[in-house]
């Protein structure tokens, strides 16, 4: 297939995944900020939402204060924020238009339909919390429908695999960023991991990766930070864990390699990252420092993106 087509499919999936992740982040932040101050301490949850979205620096060029109104606007609708939800959906649809021939009509319908709804219903943003909640649901449903239609209707060939690569790479990045922000930035220096104030923040993290219920099923325990980290990093039964994302990345890259009769640097790199995840346990991770571990993962993950681009997409 054309390299540009593969590239578009890959980015298309990334944008949709990112939009959903942003919607979940806002949703989770709204919940935790609705709690009385005594439960969450003095941390600014909106600030940390910006950090997990990786747009903190550009946000402060437009706004001076990270409060609910500003952050929601910036993450959801802001035109100058290239990864606002609105821009993600627009970019996804633009990519979809360029590769219509590689999409099934169900996938196109989902994206085009959402894009139309974005224009017709959400062009002025949201005014109330109820509206915002509806908007966030709309975004999550778009992603679910897109993913579902890809899964149910696409031929299992390179087009499908490249689209899945984008999805899992983006997902791994999102999960890693949440962990990074919560461990590193939000941890007051004089308080050790798992202090009492953190409980609701952990809930919020699990919510943003839709894993709150999963946690209880897997561990049958009250929330403990190292178990949360274990779930999000090493547990390959959780679809948004780093291990699960890399299981999928390795599998999809292998399928491409088999179809093309050739393995290359991206297959090797992905396998390397997966092997490190497979052979780690939480004790090692804590010993080496979670921050360092996550930082290394984020850079490995974005390195994989570069290698895939070089090997297939240009």
């Amino acid at each position: 297939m054309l390299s540009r087509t593969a590239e578009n499919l890959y980015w298309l999936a990334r944008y949709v995944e990112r939009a959903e992740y942003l919607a979940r982040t806002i949703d989770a932040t709204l919940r935790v900020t609705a709690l009385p101050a005594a439960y969450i301490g003095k941390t600014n949850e909106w600030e940390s939402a910006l950090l997990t979205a990786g747009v903190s620096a550009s946000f402060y060029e437009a706004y001076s204060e990270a409060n609910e109104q500003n952050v929601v606007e910036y993450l959801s609708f802001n035109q100058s924020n290239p990864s606002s939800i609105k821009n993600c959906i627009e970019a996804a649809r633009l990519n979809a238009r360029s590769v219509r021939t590689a999409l099934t009509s169900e996938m196109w319908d989902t994206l085009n339909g959402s894009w139309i709804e974005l224009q017709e219903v959400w062009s002025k943003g949201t005014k109330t919390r109820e509206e915002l909640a509806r908007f966030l649901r709309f975004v999550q449903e778009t992603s679910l429908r897109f993913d579902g239609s890809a899964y149910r209707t696409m031929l299992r060939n390179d087009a499908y695999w490249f689209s899945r690569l984008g999805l899992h790479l983006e997902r791994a990045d999102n999960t890693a960023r949440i962990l990074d922000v919560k461990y590193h930035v939000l941890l007051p220096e004089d308080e050790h991991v798992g202090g009492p104030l953190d409980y609701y923040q952990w809930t919020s993290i699990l919510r943003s990766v839709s894993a709150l219920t999963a946690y209880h099923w897997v561990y049958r325990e009250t929330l403990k930070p190292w178990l949360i980290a274990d779930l999000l990093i090493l547990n390959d039964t959780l679809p948004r864990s780093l291990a699960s994302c890399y299981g999928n990345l390795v599998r999809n890259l292998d399928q491409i390699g088999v179809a093309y009769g050739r393995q290359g640097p991206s297959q090797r790199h992905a396998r390397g990252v997966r092997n490190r995840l497979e052979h780690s346990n939480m004790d090692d991770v804590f010993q080496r420092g979670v921050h360092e571990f996550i930082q290394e993962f984020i850079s490995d993950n974005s390195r994989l993106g570069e290698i895939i681009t070089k090997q297939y997409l240009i």
Partner: protein
Amino acid sequence: MAVAFDEMNEPGGDVRQAYQELSRWLKETPPEALEYRRHEAELLFRRIGITFAVYGEAEAQERLIPFDVIPRIISAKEWTLLEKGLKQRVKALNMFLRDIYHGRDILRANVVPDDLIFQNPVFRPEMNGQDVPHDVYVHIAGIDIVRVDANDFIVLEDNARTPSGVSYMLENREIMMRLFPDLFARHRVAPVERYPDELLSCLRSVAPLSASAEPTVALMTPGIYNSAYYEHSFLADKLGIELVEGRDLIVKNDEVFMRTTEGLKRVDVIYRRVDDDFLDPLTFRPDSALGVPGLMSAYAAGNVTLANAVGTGIADDKAIYSYMPDVVKFYLGEEPILKNVQTWRCREPQDLSYVLDHLGELVVKEVHGSGGYGMLIGPAATKATIEAFRDKLKREPEGFIAQPTLALSTCPTCVASGLAPRHVDLRPFVLTGRDRTTIVPGGLTRVALKEGSLVVNSSQGGGTKDTWVLDE
């Protein structure tokens, strides 16, 4: 202006043969039902994303072309005549192009004046002496046809460069069949759905000699911001070929390749929907980011076929148009089956003075214009506009031609007040391959939705209709 020919109703009140069943059906169908279907059709178009872009309109970057649910009907007999005339015309266009870029017999015979060719910006000296496979220049032609009475089809314009609109022919039919199965059951409508197959076999038949037995065909688009992008992606999909942009292609050793996830793959035939000017920055506009550096040298080496060929603009130029009846006679020794609209060439002093005296009655067109822009419609224009045009004409007479205001035929059309006659034209698509010319029975019918308007262009408030050729 004469009274327009009504394609459904005879002046005495009788319904013409081809429209009888439709007329009965329209009487049985309540207006609300039509309105409801019209709305449904619009939803389908939007859902599928069948849109076009109007240049210069920032807010409405993607617009729908209004679709009218009342079909336009052509009888089998009329179609047979039309088909014969179209094949004749396109054959002459191809022979003319071959001649212009080779021996130039027609210029030596003084049928067409030299300066109209050599001083024409769409003449491509790069094509001089260059052979194209099987002497086919115009593989895909869109000939704009109008009717003014029951007997004659008249050619309004030849489109020999990158004619668009065929996706509407196909999608309009799809949507009509979905919305009005009962109406189809009451007619014998010739199908149009084989167009993509015909187009693909046409394109494969003109592959260069150096191509493999299974030539690779690609459709080249300027990209998603082009007004006809939807059509490009639609056709690529139907043909099962790659939709490429300039940046997907690369020329090496005078061969064209596309960049794929498995490396470079040779391309043999390019159905290009990019204008000549933007094809190759090394040969044409150096600022073109849409093209492929070196494409023209691969073309000259005979390693890739471009469809349509480079330089076909010289055949559909409005100044050349007026010579088409002579061109047909010159090459084929036959009388043209399809007539031309009477045309005054403003470059000729006698014609110019007639035109200047009758501006209020005539349609004046720019020789190099298209899309209905830069046109004066005398009877509808204000005095000031006419005077402004008079100045333009005097300054640059060779830039214009003039034609009588034609009373384009009308078809019943859904408008706010119910059914009303609106003016229509027709663009059938003629495919020319190695050894045959095919025309799928049908075409794009465009309709001027504003009362009294004669401008059918989609960029100026025109809509489309499904075109039915009856099969009996």
